[in-house]
């Protein structure tokens, strides 16, 4: 593992994280499919995880990695419940376009 010398600045990881987060926000805004909007949310969560891990590495702090672990677990639970809601909505509305799903009432 000796080739893993650290010579990438923390700033680049943070910039990559910011770019991924912004792409996730753009996807959340412009995509019209319910599943793709949900995928954009997952992309934003991953971008934030990357900055957590980068800070944990830079500051020698284990709590950053612990936090990412908990974010992953909560994101898995969120994905399960969210996809169940999508299935329930699709069963009633027979569409996945977010413009047609504008009522909380089924």
């Amino acid at each position: 593992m000796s080739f893993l010398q650290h010579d990438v600045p923390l700033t680049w990881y943070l910039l990559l994280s910011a770019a991924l987060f912004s792409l996730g926000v753009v996807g959340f805004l412009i995509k019209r499919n319910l599943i793709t909007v949900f995928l954009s949310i997952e992309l934003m969560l991953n971008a934030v995880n990357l900055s957590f891990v980068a800070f944990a590495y830079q500051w020698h702090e284990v709590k950053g990695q612990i936090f990412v672990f908990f974010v992953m677990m909560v994101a898995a639970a969120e994905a399960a419940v969210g996809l169940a809601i999508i299935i329930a909505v699709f069963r009633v509305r027979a569409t996945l376009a977010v413009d047609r799903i504008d009522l909380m009432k089924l």
Partner: protein
Amino acid sequence: MHLILFFLFAGFCLAGAINLLLQTHPINSALSLIVVMTSLAVLYLLLGAEFLAIAQIIVYAGAVMVLFTFVVMLLNAGREERTLGSRAAGRVGFPAVVVVLAVLATIILRTQGLASAHLGVGLSNDPNGSNLVILSQVLFHELLLPFELTSVLILIAILGAVAIARREGSEGTAEK
């Protein structure tokens, strides 16, 4: 070497994320998100987080994305249609996102001492060592209660998902 790997997989990440936006079929978007997550796992490995890299592949690229692709196939989701509702999001949203990205980049580039803040004592960045021991000590000693609570959370989420996605018993399906 680290630099080359960083650029390679950061490029994969950005390409996958942009491809997610450009594709119109949900299954293509889901597959490009898998590319993003796997590249992020390699970046975690570069940052000395071996456990998180494997967990990223197993939990995210494995379990969560299998769930997504399964739902896409189950619902037989076709390509998305362009509707009028996206105009406002395009006009107001794009400049807002560009401004947010610019502000974030400026803050990141301007902030001094990001790399030299007070150092914790937990992790060692020795390239030959492993952080698994210290990670598991903190996770299973100090944070044992939150760890067990996440298992309860997952259990509740599974029960909730089954209850929501169940076919009969709701008024909405009775109308059909």
